């Protein structure tokens, strides 16, 4: 379950990004990732871990959107691209060459963040604004051990 550690890394990057807007705390709607299929990441587990990790933090309610990028190799014999598969031992179907070059499939990228910034005008009800007390807290990986029930209860309904 290394997705937990990957989420920790992602939260560190998100906390750094937040600092760019200080003292305003951005309301994040979506975080977009690009994850190649030739990585050790299981997107469903990452989404699950993210959902737990952001509870009660300034990122609560933010959705993790993962774009899966397929494995694409380049055959060095004919320069053609192909979709390597374990069934074909990753060899190129065109010239039966080993998987020399990977064009795509190794990506682990935080592509972009969709967010809004609170302005002086009152915000419409359609956009949830996080309470500032919890928003000031850095995102924790897990709910506070002393009050797990409270954290769960305070989690916003999706």
């Amino acid at each position, binding site marked *: 379950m290394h997705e937990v550690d990957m989420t920790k890394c992602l939260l560190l990057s998100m906390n750094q990004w937040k600092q760019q807007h200080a003292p305003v705390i951005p309301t994040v709607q979506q975080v977009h990732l690009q994850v190649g299929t030739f990585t050790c990441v299981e997107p469903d587990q990452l989404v699950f871990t993210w959902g737990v990790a952001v509870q009660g933090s300034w990122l609560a309610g933010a959705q993790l959107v993962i774009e899966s990028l397929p494995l694409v190799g380049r055959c060095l014999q004919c320069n053609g691209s192909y979709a390597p598969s374990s069934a074909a031992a990753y060899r190129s179907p065109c010239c039966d060459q080993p*998987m020399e070059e990977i064009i795509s499939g190794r990506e682990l990228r935080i592509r972009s963040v969709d967010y809004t910034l609170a302005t002086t005008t009152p915000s419409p009800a359609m*956009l949830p604004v996080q309470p500032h007390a919890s928003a000031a807290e850095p995102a924790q990986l897990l709910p506070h051990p002393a009050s797990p029930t409270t954290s769960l209860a305070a989690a916003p309904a999706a």
Partner: protein
Amino acid sequence: MHMPLEDTLGLNLLAANQHQALHNREHFDAWRLLCLNVMSSPGAGKTSLLERSLAALAPEFSMAVLEGDMTTQLDAERLEAVGVPVVPITTGRACHLDAAMVSGGLRLLRQQLDPASLDLLWVENVGNLVCPAEFEVGEHRKVALLSVTEGEDKPLKYPVMFREADCVLITKVDLLPYLPVQVERIEAHIQQVNPRCAVFQVSASSGVGLEAWHGWLRASHAAQCPAPEVSTAESLSIHSILVSA
């Protein structure tokens, strides 16, 4: 009214780990040592190989080991018996070492010795063919082990690990006469996913193939840490001190 904004980050998902890994790497380079990240499934023979390689290379290289283990220090005790400084890093329930854990290990190591005196730093990762492949610790080279008892198909089933490796050691080859396994097929499967890596057949029990593997280590060390002119000047001054004494 809120205007929806979008920031393009383009950051690596593991940017925080990579930042720490880069920091570790800067230390390694400043200390002029070669750092190896040794990875495999549990029981492939990482510790047995290290016992043999540490003993064989001790006359020519100054070495230390950062020993990753989930709960015990058994492996660390085995390697300490060889006479090489070992820092155990127990990861708890984590299935891999990350750059921050290695950084913590380095702090402990510096209490024992001056890392600048080292030529080789071995990081023995936690036994796992999946997670360690994605978490860099600052190493210069990745070494993956695959024992012949694990089967011929493992490079295809765990391709990321074998793709990332600079060197793959096929271990326990002394058992080949007793197994329905063709080592040529293991080599071919490694080559499918990573045509550029070095592959050696070795046995820590019989010693077969170790010399070729050690040759790769020597070449990697020479490439990573070329002899500096400064050290020549230092050795000259030491020589003159000895002569004048």
